[in-house]
């Protein structure tokens, strides 16, 4: 009952949160000192990056680790890893695009080869390689094992992305919301809008993951059904 209700509410709640972000971000919140209206991208870019790097890539990594651990190994976790990684690719791309749109007027360039941007692009390449590796293997178990190993290897890059702005000198700004001493850098309605955007995009991830997972299940069912049908047909041919 609760499961059904939450599944039904996922889409509408996501829509409401994202619509609220749009309304608050564009019309209600004041513009910013120094950056003016440019900084309204703060309600999109950090949330998209959060989902790309931590939520979706994190889900794919955890599911991959669960697959590699014998006790929890199942095609279900492999499927979750695959679907989460696909969504991650979309969000990594969105992160790079929104960052670029922000960077051009703010920095003066669309792209800079600094540690934060480069390491994020490297994560995108790893995510694409993960999907390519899945297509390269026809054996389901081999495919699951190899891609899970690659996902865990790629996850090493996540802390590098996170701490790149502290470890090295980058054009990209430091921590957006919290300072290193955990002080909040954004207040009032702006902080609430930022929180809502994080929630909205996180919910969007789960909505997309669920839709992609269902599609994968349907695809597997169709494949199994067609295989079964082909076997029956073959048997009939043999009897004739």
């Amino acid at each position: 009952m609760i499961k059904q209700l939450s599944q039904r509410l996922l889409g509408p709640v996501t829509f409401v949160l994202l619509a609220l972000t749009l309304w608050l971000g564009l019309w209600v919140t004041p513009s910013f000192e120094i950056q003016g209206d440019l900084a309204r991208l703060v309600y999109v870019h950090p949330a998209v990056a959060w989902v790309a790097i931590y939520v979706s890539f994190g889900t794919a990594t955890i599911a991959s680790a669960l697959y590699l651990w014998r006790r929890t190994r199942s095609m279900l976790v492999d499927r979750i890893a695959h679907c989460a990684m696909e969504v991650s690719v979309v969000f990594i791309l969105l992160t790079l695009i929104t960052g670029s749109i922000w960077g051009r007027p703010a920095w003066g360039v669309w792209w800079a080869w600094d540690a934060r941007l480069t390491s994020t692009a490297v994560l995108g390449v790893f995510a694409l390689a993960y999907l390519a590796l899945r297509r390269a293997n026809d054996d389901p178990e081999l495919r699951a094992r190899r891609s899970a190993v690659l996902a865990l290897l790629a996850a090493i890059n996540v802390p590098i992305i996170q701490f790149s702005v502290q470890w090295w000198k980058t054009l990209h700004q430091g921590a957006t919301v919290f300072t290193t001493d955990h002080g909040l850098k954004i207040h009032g309605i702006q902080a609430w809008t930022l929180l809502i955007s994080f929630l909205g995009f996180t919910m969007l991830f789960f909505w997309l993951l669920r839709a992609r997972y269902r599609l994968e299940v349907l695809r597997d069912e169709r494949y199994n059904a067609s295989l079964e049908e082909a076997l029956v047909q073959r048997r009939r041919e043999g009897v004739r």
Partner: protein
Amino acid sequence: MPDADVGLDLTPVAAPPSKRRGRRRSIGVVALLAVAVLALLSQGLLHSLNYFETVDQAMHSRGSLGTKTIRLEGIVKPNTINRTATGASFWIKGGGKEVFVSAHGSPPQLFQANIPVVVVGHFTSRTSDTFYGTQIMVKHTASYIAQHPKRVKAPNGSTR
């Protein structure tokens, strides 16, 4: 007893995919991944993990830098900006040192006094304080303070 050969489709079917083929493809994907990652890193991080030199660092190693192209970071000194037809000239400071920048090309939208900038260019000589810039980038901070301070309250209730 039915004749097994009559009406039976004996055309050869494709062999099931072998593990060897999967392994070859996997190695191909991993090789491509390695090439792509190395290409990205060679552009971005293999030369230097740090994107720029600060003013004091650059001044310290000015002799060895010579007229080599670098990225120089510093804060734009107020009342020094002079916009020209081809670009802008201004002083930047950092770590107690100052450098005069003469840059070509239009500065970014956010370019202004007291803002950190990264200028791509080179010193005009080993001993010069003048830096010839070909590109100005603004390194904005992560400060998101509202333009109308009274509308924003800090968690402790004070207005900022």
